[in-house]
């Protein structure tokens, strides 16, 4: 029940806001932030009451009949893979709601869509029924079009359309996959735990695995289907970029894990050695493209492509260590990129109205908090020990090394380039000469500092005390790795 409450609270928040008159913008903001905070609380309750000694694979399980005619039920539950992501969603939406405080145009519609989107995201992470998961998945993807198209900037219509169409092509593949799975089981069940226990015939797994993996992979930013992602990030308003890079792309990676690898291990063993090549391109090429960008947001956008490449690479290597690293990297990258976009969008762009790296400079003098937060996120992104990114990427690299040493060595280039571009943007935005035009920018508000501070604290917390999460992740990843190793 506690897991369903995250979805219910978000949807309830959306419904409540719908009946508030549109002029009462502050009330709307408070309601949305309140709903987001409550959902975070429920997520944390679930996270901290997860029982590591329990024999159950999924805890907090709840089952309600929904469409018996299709063998589809409302089944939710959480394990060590999904709960960190549920918590991640909670933190990002709470901070995102705070960061979105300055949206004045159609505030009501904005928050309604934001909360619907978040309900979808929570839903995907907790669903244990494939059709339910897909319904939530679409619920998370579709509002994105309006959120970017209406409240975005820089080629927003193009970015919104491109993003939505790419993701919808992905979901078309997934839908085809679900129909095939549905028929293969005799139309009796789409319960993920039951599906995972069925051993599907080999030829079926060969056919279905790429459909599901690539379908979800589009949302994870898998090369060469990633181009929607930087364009969408740049066009989106700040809080939407945070949600989008922070959690939405994780839906894709999570879907790859739950909807493809877990259900079709035999297919995974055949296809993933090829897919890992794509992820290597993601990591290396993504970081190199980030290096040459002039637009501040594009740097972060491509850094997301590169880091998500690490996630999918960790999944594709299929070793216990790399899988656990991938899950932690999803969490770590979600928080880190949320912090990046908060600083880039809200601290810098909303005040200076430019994202051109050549025009920015010396901002450390006027917004030291922004500089410090960005540097913390940047260090996490580089994999600096003491921050969460280090733990995650180390595990991924060690895990990948066990299976594919060449891939691990190549992705080392990605890490080096990452350090280079992060240092480059830190230097050109926060240090050097402060342009005279920026001398009198409005100060950073307390609310903005809070939102950024929470995220930065999380990066440090997980960096110093990783077993808070890794114990639970390993607990769930071990059986999965055993399954995938066959």
């Amino acid at each position: 029940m506690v897991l369903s409450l995250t979805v219910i609270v978000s949807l309830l928040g959306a419904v409540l806001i719908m009946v508030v008159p549109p002029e009462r913008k502050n009330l709307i903001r408070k309601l949305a932030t309140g709903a987001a905070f409550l959902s975070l609380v429920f997520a944390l309750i679930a996270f901290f009451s997860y029982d590591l000694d329990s024999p159950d694979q999924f805890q907090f399980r709840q089952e309600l009949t929904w469409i018996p005619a299709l063998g589809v039920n409302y089944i939710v539950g959480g394990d060590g893979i999904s709960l960190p992501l549920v918590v991640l969603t909670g933190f990002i939406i709470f901070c995102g709601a705070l960061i979105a405080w300055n949206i004045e145009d159609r505030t009501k519609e904005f928050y309604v869509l934001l909360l619907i989107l978040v309900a979808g995201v929570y839903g995907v992470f907790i669903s244990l029924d494939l059709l339910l998961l897909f319904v939530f998945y679409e619920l998370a993807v579709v509002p994105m079009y309006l959120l970017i198209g209406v409240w975005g900037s820089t080629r927003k219509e193009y970015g919104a359309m491109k993003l939505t169409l790419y993701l919808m092509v992905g979901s078309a593949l997934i839908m085809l996959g679900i129909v095939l799975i549905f028929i293969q089981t005799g139309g009796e069940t789409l319960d993920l735990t039951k599906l995972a226990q069925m051993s599907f015939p080999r030829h079926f797994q060969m056919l279905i695995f790429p459909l599901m993996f690539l379908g979800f992979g589009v949302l994870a930013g898998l090369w060469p289907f990633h181009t929607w992602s930087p364009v969408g990030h740049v066009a989106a308003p700040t809080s939407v970029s945070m949600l989008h890079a922070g959690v939405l792309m994780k839906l894709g990676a999570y879907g790859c894990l739950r909807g493809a690898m877990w259900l079709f291990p035999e297919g995974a063993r055949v296809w993933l050695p090829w897919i890992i090549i794509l992820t290597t391109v993601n990591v290396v090429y993504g970081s190199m493209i980030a290096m040459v960008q002039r637009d501040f947001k594009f740097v972060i956008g491509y850094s997301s492509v590169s880091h998500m490449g690490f996630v999918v690479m960790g999944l594709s290597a299929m070793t216990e260590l790399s899988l656990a690293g991938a899950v932690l990297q999803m969490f770590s990258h979600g928080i880190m990129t949320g912090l990046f976009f908060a600083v880039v969008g809200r601290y810098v762009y909303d005040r200076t109205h430019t994202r051109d790296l050549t025009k920015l400079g010396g901002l450390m003098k006027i917004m030291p908090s922004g500089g410090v937060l960005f540097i913390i996120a940047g260090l996490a992104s580089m994999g600096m020990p003491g921050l969460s990114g280090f733990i995650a990427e180390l595990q991924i690299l060690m895990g990948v090394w066990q299976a594919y040493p060449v891939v691990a060595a190549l992705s080392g280039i990605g890490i080096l380039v990452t350090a280079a571009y992060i240092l480059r943007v830190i230097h050109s935005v926060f240090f050097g000469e402060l342009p005279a035009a920026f001398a009198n920018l409005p100060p950073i508000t307390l609310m903005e500092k809070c939102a950024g501070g929470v995220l930065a604290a999380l990066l440090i917390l997980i960096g110093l005390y990783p077993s808070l999460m890794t114990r639970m992740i390993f607990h769930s990843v071990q059986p999965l790795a055993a399954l995938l190793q066959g």
Partner: protein
Amino acid sequence: MDYLTLTKYLAPEIVLVLTAFAVLMLDLNVLRREPLPRRFAVLGSTTLGGLALAAALALWRLYWDPASFFADTFVVDPLNGIFALIIIAIAALITLISLPEKFTVHVSEYYALILFAALGMEFMIFAEELIMIFVSLELTAISLFALTAFDRAARRSIEAAIKYMLFGALSTAFLLFGMSYLCGLTGQTSLAGLSSALTSYAAGGWGESAIVALGVLLLLAGFGYKLAAAPFHGWAPDTFEGAPLPVTSYIASGSKVAAFLVAAKILITGLPALSGSALWGNGEPGWTLALAAISAVSMVLGNLVAILQKNVKRLLAYSSIAHAGYILVGLLAFNRLGMTSLLYYIVIYALTNIGAFAVLQIIAKESGGETMADLAGAGRRSPLLALLMVILVLSLAGVPPMGGFIAKFLVFAAAIKPDAASFGLLWLVALAVAANAVALYYYLLILKQMYIIEPANPTRIKLPRTVTTAAALCVLAILYWGIFPQRLLAQLESMSARLF
């Protein structure tokens, strides 16, 4: 069979006829000199009253024992009964959205024709005999031709009606020709008789009997027109664009529902022996193969051409051509799940269309046109209306949790089901899924117009109560049946049991 029982079973239809006459007499004797809006309102309310009574009787009829009259010319069973009720509901929604209109002075004739068309659809649904089906198809078609031309001041309305009628006449000829071949060969006109006679024919091999093949193909061509499936869709865009909006809505909903049901019954109960197969690499001549081709062409052509449309009515016309393609997938799956999915799909689809045209009607009244540009800024001008439209459009796009999603899911599942081992119909389903991804583009364009583009004239849109109610009812229904489809699905499934 005695006439008293027949009268009892026909009570809802008798009420429809009586209401039509009552409306005509009322206008002639009492309301002739009243102002136009008042006549629309009073006569419309009378029509609504009659429809409500008919609906109540039709609902009651669902609980009576199944019965059959005149050698299957009139078959009352749960399947036919529930769809008769749905037709009455559709006619009521159409009447509801006509209430604030004032495009014609022939008010009573307008409402009477709506009722007569509904009557034709009722008989189409109840009839399981070729001649009766043909007669009721014509009653519907002729009423709709006349309704299309009702906006006499607008040239395009006349043009639309003439195109509709010319295409209709041609398709009638095809249909009648096809029926006459089948009937002449077998000496049967009832679907059950046709089925058994054709089974013995088919035992001798389909290929040997070109006459049967010709008959079936002509029949499909005739129905292809009624369903607006490519390549028989030529009339649809012009007719949709030219007809008064409530009539467009009627053509896109009621007449489609009835035509799909009757086409499914003819093919499934009348011609099962000639089904053939559309499986990849395993095709056999038969109507499923022909339908697969029609369906594939409709989906691709409908969705691609829709992208180019500037007029929302035309866009929805092409979208309806594409949807005819999807629905046909459920039919040519030729199994029980397919029939269930077809029934579910047409109900949801009819409601979605009525809702979308109702919203369009409100916007057209305010902006003076129904092009994409007229939708601009609807999200600012009336948030409620735009929200309704978003839900309707997303349902058409097959996005969960709207009904359109479950409908598509079921149709695709049904098509793959009979041959789960080798996925013989996967080619068609993959095509449908791909076409649907394309379709999303133009549905998003509607969202873009409403929310992203700023309005040229930012006045608030006044919401006429009746039309808004109709649209809201449709939206609630597709949301409810999209999120909780269980009861509807279970009922439709038990009803389609008779056909398999």
